[in-house]
Every structure is written in structure tokens, then in C-alpha cells.
């Protein structure tokens, strides 16, 4: 019993980081209807920003953490401006956006390999290694922090989307960009906001991920997990992306814990295929019907 709870907690912890990645990815999808593959590049850069801020510039952890988020936000905004805005201006088909996204992703990865190098780097120990006990269950301090930081960020994001004017404008633009423009919403700045938000969350997720595992140029591949999570929950739906991420995190830790860790990705991807075949809208895909 304790072991199941233990795995569940690990699953929540890793799922919460998937959620940080998935919401940014899902936000962009909800507005632009294409898969932003460059998201993985931003996650990877976030991990490097955090790493160098701590090791090279000797910044305190929280400064490095927020700093990595802000730098990643700027990268995401830059990618939008350079890789997508010119396409939007020409009303290019969505396939072009996907190709441009892949190009941006490959550029970022290879840029890092060429400048920083392909080696694996390990974050210094930031949170004490010894776990603390919660009624017989041992929780790693880093896992705990990952969960808390992700939860706070996600709650802040939901508050922003649901309760602020700009958040409502994001929802409106996701539903219908043309109608939003007709209401006086500057859709261009809404798109920039969405990339900025997604970039910030990707950056801090990158730091958390780098701390948990290691930092290397291909770490952005992890974005495929946020894709699975987002499809799971229903592409474009934020609550869906969060729920999908937790489910994915729990499934992965259960598979690693009870079957074999080598089967982890095999099972994740099988789930993805099953969902695409049997429930392509996901758990919470756009269900509101427009009668018009």
C-alpha cells in the first residue's frame, strides 16, 4: 500500500512538471492551431539558463530560477516574431507553421551543441538529498519542490486566464480570432502574450527537469510528453492539458515501478495512439458547440 502511495506521489511530482510544459504548448495550439515544436527548444534553453546562472554566475537559486524563466520567455517571443509572424502576415497554411517550428527547434538544438557542446551537465545539489517522511511515505525534497512550484504556477496561470481582461481576450482569440479582432482585441499582442507565458513556464519546467535529471541539448525531446499529455486531455484545453499531464506522470511512474522502466515510453506512446484512435477529442476537448 505504502509503495503505491509512494509511486503516486512521484507520479504527481513528474506530472506537475509535464503540466508546466503542456499548458504552454496547449495555449499556443489553442490560438494558432499548430504544434509548436520549438517549445522543446525553449525548455532545453531554460534548463541551460538555470544551470549557468547557478554555476557560472553563482546566483542564488530563486534568482536563477526566475531569471531562466524570463530569458526563456524572451526566446519564445523571439521565435514567434522570427519564425511565425512572417507566416501569419502572409496567411500561410498551417503546415508551413509546423515546418517553421521544426526548423526553429532544430536550430536551437544545434546552436546549443555548437556553442555549449553536447556534453551532459548536472545541476549542483540545491535541495538536501535526504527525503522527509510523511506518515511512513518518503518524499524527496526536490520532488516536493517540483510539485509545489508547478502547482503555484498553474494556479497563477488559471487565475490570469479566467479572471483578467487579457485572459478573457486570450480565450476569445482562441475561440475565434476574427471575431476578437472585430471587438478591438489586438490579436497580435494576444499571440505574443501567449508565447511569453508559455515560454516562461517552459523555462522554469526546464530548470526543474534539469535538476531532477541532467541537462543536455536533446532534453527538449521531452516536449513530446507534453504533446501526449495535451492530446490526452484534449488539444487546446488547459484543464485537459493539466489532467492529461498528471495521468501521464502517474502512468509512467507506475510502469517504471511495477513493470520495467524500459517500457515507460513504449506504454506512453501506445496510450497516445489509443487515444487518437478511440477518443481523438481527448478527455476535455472542445465540447461547447456553436449553434451559429
Amino acid at each position, binding site marked *: 500500500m505504502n509503495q503505491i502511495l509512494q509511486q503516486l506521489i512521484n507520479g504527481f511530482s513528474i506530472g506537475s512538471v509535464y503540466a508546466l510544459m503542456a499548458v504552454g504548448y496547449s495555449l499556443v495550439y489553442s490560438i494558432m492551431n499548430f504544434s509548436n515544436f520549438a517549445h522543446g527548444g525553449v525548455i532545453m534553453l531554460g534548463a541551460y539558463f538555470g544551470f549557468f546562472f547557478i554555476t557560472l554566475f553563482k546566483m542564488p537559486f530563486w534568482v536563477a530560477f526566475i531569471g531562466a524563466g524570463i530569458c526563456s520567455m524572451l526566446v519564445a517571443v523571439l521565435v514567434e516574431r522570427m519564425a511565425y509572424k512572417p507566416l501569419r502576415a502572409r496567411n500561410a497554411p498551417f503546415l508551413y507553421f509546423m515546418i517553421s517550428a521544426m526548423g526553429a527547434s532544430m536550430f536551437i538544438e544545434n546552436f546549443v551543441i555548437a556553442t555549449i557542446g553536447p556534453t551532459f551537465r548536472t545541476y549542483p545539489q540545491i535541495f538536501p538529498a535526504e527525503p522527509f517522511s510523511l506518515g511512513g511515505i518518503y518524499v524527496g525534497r526536490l520532488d516536493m519542490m517540483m510539485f509545489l512550484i508547478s502547482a503555484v504556477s498553474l494556479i497563477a496561470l488559471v487565475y490570469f486566464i479566467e479572471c483578467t*481582461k487579457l485572459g478573457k481576450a486570450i480565450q476569445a482569440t482562441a475561440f475565434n480570432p476574427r471575431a476578437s479582432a472585430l471587438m*478591438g482585441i489586438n490579436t497580435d499582442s494576444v499571440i505574443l502574450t501567449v508565447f511569453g507565458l508559455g515560454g516562461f513556464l517552459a523555462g522554469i519546467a526546464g530548470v526543474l527537469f534539469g535538476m531532477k535529471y541532467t541537462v543536455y541539448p536533446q532534453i527538449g525531446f521531452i516536449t513530446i510528453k507534453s504533446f501526449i499529455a495535451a492530446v490526452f486531455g484534449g488539444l487546446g484545453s488547459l484543464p485537459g492539458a493539466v489532467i492529461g499531464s498528471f495521468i501521464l506522470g502517474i502512468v509512467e511512474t507506475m510502469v517504471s515501478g511495477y513493470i520495467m522502466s524500459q517500457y515507460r515510453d513504449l506504454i506512453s506512446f501506445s496510450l497516445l495512439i489509443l487515444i487518437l484512435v478511440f477518443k481523438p477529442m481527448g478527455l476535455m476537448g472542445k465540447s461547447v458547440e456553436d449553434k451559429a
Partner: protein
Amino acid sequence: MLEIKNLHAYYGGIHALKGVGISVSEGEIVTIIGANGAGKSTLLNAVSGIVRYREGSIFFKGKPLPRLPHLIVKRGIVQVPEGRLIFANLTVKDNLMLGAYLRSDKEGIKRDLEKVYELFPRLKEREKQMAGTLSGGEQQMLAIGRGLMSNPELILLDEPSLGLAPIMVETIFRVIKDIKNLGKTILLVEQNAYKALSTADSAYMLEQGRVVKSGRAADLINDPGVKESYLGVKVNNRS
């Protein structure tokens, strides 16, 4: 108030507007009638900045109109689009408040919200409902109310009666007159030519991207050509 001169616009590869000129005076209801594909919606979308025009000019209150949609709304022109295009995933109240997106005068927004609720009591009853659950007629009311929330001087209405039950069509046209009485100017695009002409002050008839007739609405309604093409009346005394 609105002066459109020699407007040329392309829709995909189609030359949709071929030198259209239209003038709207303050406080009037001006209607544009014409068949499907005549360029009516393209004209409204060119004014709203959704469709780019290659040639011609649009002046609003003596100054050239900006070309970006949000700047146009800021100048006081709002479009209530064809097909309503309400935000089905948001509540009725959220939809209305998005109409006031560019405004920051809280008092004025509150006043206009009350005005909209007065015009459409149904919307007040359903304030907290998701907009997607409204009936077609209610959605049209919401779309008009949302447009009014920007406190526009000029409202562009694109096919407000499309797909509505006859009794709802009556309601919508009554509301259009009410809106005029609020001091707003209205540019109305309609396929229901009879209703449009009997509500409007002046009218333009578009055919294949060109203005083919214009004048007082009361005169056009009796024009034999208009009668035959749009009102379904066979005119015998022409031959």
C-alpha cells in the same frame, strides 16, 4: 460621416469590389442590398480592416481610417459580423464585456451594459449562461449587444436577420430602429431587401462588386428593377 471612394478589394483571387463608393451620413440607417457574392460582406470587412483593400480610400469623420481592426474599433466603428461569431465558450456577460475591451471608463461601461440589458432583457436573464447555449435569435441579440458595448458611433451590421424565425426578424429590425434612436449611425447589409429598405433611410444596391443603384430607401423600394430582382415582384408595366 463615412466616405468610401473607389474601393478595390480582392478576396482570394477574386476581384470582389470594383471601385465601390458609398457615403453614410451621421444618424442615418444606410443599407446595402445585393445578391450572394455581390461584395456586401467584403465591403464591411474592408471597413473593419479584416479584408485589405488595394485601391481607394475610406474616410471617417473627415480623417482617413486606420487599417488595423483594433485601431478601427478605437475610432468608433464596430462590426456585428455575419453568423454572429459570439464566443460560445464564454458567458453572456463575458461576451458583452469583451465588446468593451478597449474601454477603461468603468462608469460608462456600466451604463452601456444597462442600456444593452434594457434593449435585450433576455440577455440579462441569461447573463451567467454560456453563450453557446443560446438560441440563434438570442445569439444575434448578444452579437448586437456586444457590438454596442464598444460605444461605437457607427455600427456595421452584416446580415442580422440571416437564419432567424420570422418573429425574431421583426424583433431584430425593431431593435435596429431603437439603436438609431440612441444616436448611432448604422450601415446595414441585408439579403432581406424588403425589410432592409423599409427600415433604412438610404440604400445602395451592389451587383458583382459595383454599386448599380443608390438613393433614398423609400425610392428604391418602388424601383421596378429592385422590385423584380430583390422583392420577388414581377413588374408587368415595364414592357
